[in-house]
């Protein structure tokens, strides 16, 4: 069809030619008003699309109701030495472990520089604080960590003298074999970081506010 129409155009009629329509002109001359309009229209459309997309992306983030539930208060008076109690904080398990003097000594015996992750990962300290045992706790007897393996998010199993898990006396993650010590620091396996210490404070001798 298209070819048939074209062939009917007499050869002696010159094609109507806009001054910037030819390739030669386009490369030689300065950008035209039309170029500017193209770019301005494109830029406005891209910006509009980006702004319109944002609500659709941001709706997936934690809602205000979720954020409002972000802190809890717990009573830890009943926890015995050597015992760990699990609370639920922000949907995750939160380990509160009352460490024995032996466990504290074991955690203090290792230098932060010998650890796979040398940083404290303690939300109550600066990001660059080294992973010494003192930097992992507020009171040495009480270790408070988020019970989420830093590999892929499983809950590690607590190690006790009766039922040892892994070789470092802390926790073993059964999913992919990460081993943590009695300060919740990664010692062996694929997990890249120490168990996170959440932002928390003692609101009484045996009362904690987490988050």
């Amino acid at each position: 069809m298209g070819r048939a129409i074209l062939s009917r155009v007499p050869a002696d009629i010159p094609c109507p030619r806009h001054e910037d329509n030819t390739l030669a002109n386009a490369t030689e001359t300065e950008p035209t008003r039309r170029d500017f309009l193209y770019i301005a229209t494109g830029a406005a459309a891209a910006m509009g699309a980006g702004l319109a997309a944002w609500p659709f992306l941001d709706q997936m983030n934690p809602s205000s109701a979720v954020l409002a539930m972000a802190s809890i208060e717990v009573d830890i008076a009943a926890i015995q030495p050597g015992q760990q109690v699990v609370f639920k904080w922000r949907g995750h398990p939160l380990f509160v472990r009352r460490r024995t003097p032996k466990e504290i000594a074991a955690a203090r015996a290792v230098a932060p520089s010998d650890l796979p992750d040398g940083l404290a990962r303690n939300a109550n300290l600066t990001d660059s604080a080294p992973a010494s045992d003192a930097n992992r706790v507020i009171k040495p007897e009480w270790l408070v960590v988020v019970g989420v393996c830093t590999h892929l998010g499983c809950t590690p199993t607590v190690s006790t003298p009766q039922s040892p898990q892994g070789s470092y006396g802390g926790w073993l993650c059964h999913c992919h074999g990460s081993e943590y010590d009695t300060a919740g620091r990664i010692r062996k396996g694929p997990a890249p970081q120490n168990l996170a210490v959440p932002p928390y404070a003692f609101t009484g001798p045996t009362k904690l506010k987490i988050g």
Partner: protein
Amino acid sequence: MAHSSYVPKTKLGRWFDQRLPIVRLVSDSFVTYPTPRNLNFWYVFGAILTLMLVVQIVTGIVLAMHYVPSADAAFGSVEQRIMREVNYGWLIRYIHANGASMFFLAVYVHMFRGLYYGSYKAPREILWILGVFIYLLMTATAFFGYVLPWGQMSFWGATVITSLFSAIDQIIPNLGTAITHWLWGDFAVGDATLNRFFSLHYLLPFVIAGVVGLHIWALHVPGNNNPLGIDVKGPQDTVPFYPFYTVKDGFFMVLFVIFYLAFVFYAPNFFGNPDNYIQANPLVTPTDIVPEWYLLPFYAMLRAIPSKLIGVLVLVGALLTLLFVPWLDTSKVRSCRFRPLMKQLFWLFAADCILLGYVGSQTADAAWHLGGIDFPLVWLARFGTLYYFGFFWVLMPWIGKREVTRPLPESIAQAVLAKGKH
């Protein structure tokens, strides 16, 4: 598509054809469509996969009528309402759950078939890539679907897989964590996560159906490859799709459905994990987290690597590698029938995938005890992973250029007729 041979028989047919030639499209695509006359059993899985997609969509729509996507009610809506109260709910649920396994079984046969006969090679690169997209979409859909019953495996599977994104923290600090929170809609997998996974699980099958349409389109432009891997040279090499391949595909579809329903009726939980009959508990991880069988080889690769970031990159790389296969294979000959060396490496690759699947099904610290020596399976997974990548990125490009291939037959017709004479 080849020249259309559809001729409307009635006046109404002609009138309709001039306005919307959809009957012509169907006729050209599934009736007169010239198909190589030598397609064997391994070519029936495309039709079986189409059937499985329809089965999954139909049963899925029905299940969605009774399912409640909420962390409190999801488990009950599946295990009590659908399994015990809704009329035939148990049947429809088992058809859907086992259907996922059958879908993957069929897709793996389909993919290995394509690899063996070189169906990804020019001019079918786009066809292959669309197929990889379908496979990736299937994986995502199956993952979302597995979360919905909200059992322990659902919950912890969702946690582990979404946490793969937290590996990005090791490249850009905190970005990975931000992405996981964005995916979850919470600080952990929870109600918000379940709702969005349900929404996406309902959406993606229709996206798959769309890409399947493109896949069939891209198939019908160059036409089918065939076990000889040589081009169709004329009408003597082909037969019309109907009735030759409709009856062949139909026959094997019936056999496949019998196999499938044997699981539905006699071993409905064969592919399932007993832990998923325990309601999701965010505070207790099951001792062994195992994905569904069809993801085990990739899971084994993830666990084989002692570094989180590299493990995740290997997992993603193993999937994305498939996209490059058309250009990694440098051989001029398509079919492994004429590639004696590649044929052996192919079967080694198939065995490697099964081996990786086996290792993925075992615990992270499992070992074989061989004559008093412990051989940790993680090393098996490491060798397996090495061969997986080596097969595609080293052997395929290298062997393709050096291998002495066997002589190709003149034409499909000649090869088929010669076979008949013996």
